[in-house]
């Protein structure tokens, strides 16, 4: 099995955000909000770091 780097980021972020959301908040609504927040931070942080590395290289 091979996947792209971006697919790996999405899968990692999805699974990790689900666990963080369930374990770090008590109410279902807050779990979903925190999970979504973590997902956006994971994916957004990776894209931002990727652009920083691209700028350093060029």
């Amino acid at each position, binding site marked *: 099995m*091979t996947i792209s780097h971006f697919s*790996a980021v999405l*899968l990692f972020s999805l*699974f990790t955000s689900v666990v*963080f959301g*369930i374990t770090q908040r*008590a109410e279902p609504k807050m779990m979903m909000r925190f999970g979504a927040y973590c997902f956006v931070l994971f994916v957004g942080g990776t894209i931002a770091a990727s652009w920083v590395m691209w700028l350093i290289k060029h």
Partner: protein
Amino acid sequence: MPTKVQYPLVAGDKGLVDDSTSRVSPAIAFIAGWLIPGAGHLLLGKWIRAALLMASIVGMFAIGIALQGKIYSANTGEPLDMLGFAGDLGSGILYGLARFLGWGQAPVLVAVADYGTKFIVVAGLLNIVAAVDAHSLASGRKRT
């Protein structure tokens, strides 16, 4: 004149624990959650959370194996390998299954396989977080 005895209101005081606290022992919830991802929440009757945790952790572990990630073993002598082993061990029975069936023993040759190694380690660490959450629910430290 009789004096009124006042007990300090501290966390852990029996009087502050409500009756809805689970009858499942916190240690049992933790061990079950560690051995089988989501089992701690399942024992506590949190079906949806258990299913989501199991899907996430088992899914992450399975994708790591499918990406030809490495399963660490104990006593390799390398400090980083020992940390990897500690992370892998968090997967509980999944780690034992992988060792028994010989998964993750091939040398890492491609970059995606290294991602697989990280997926497996993080799945173990997330399982520990989930098991601790089950412990907190069983002990009443986390209300719902």
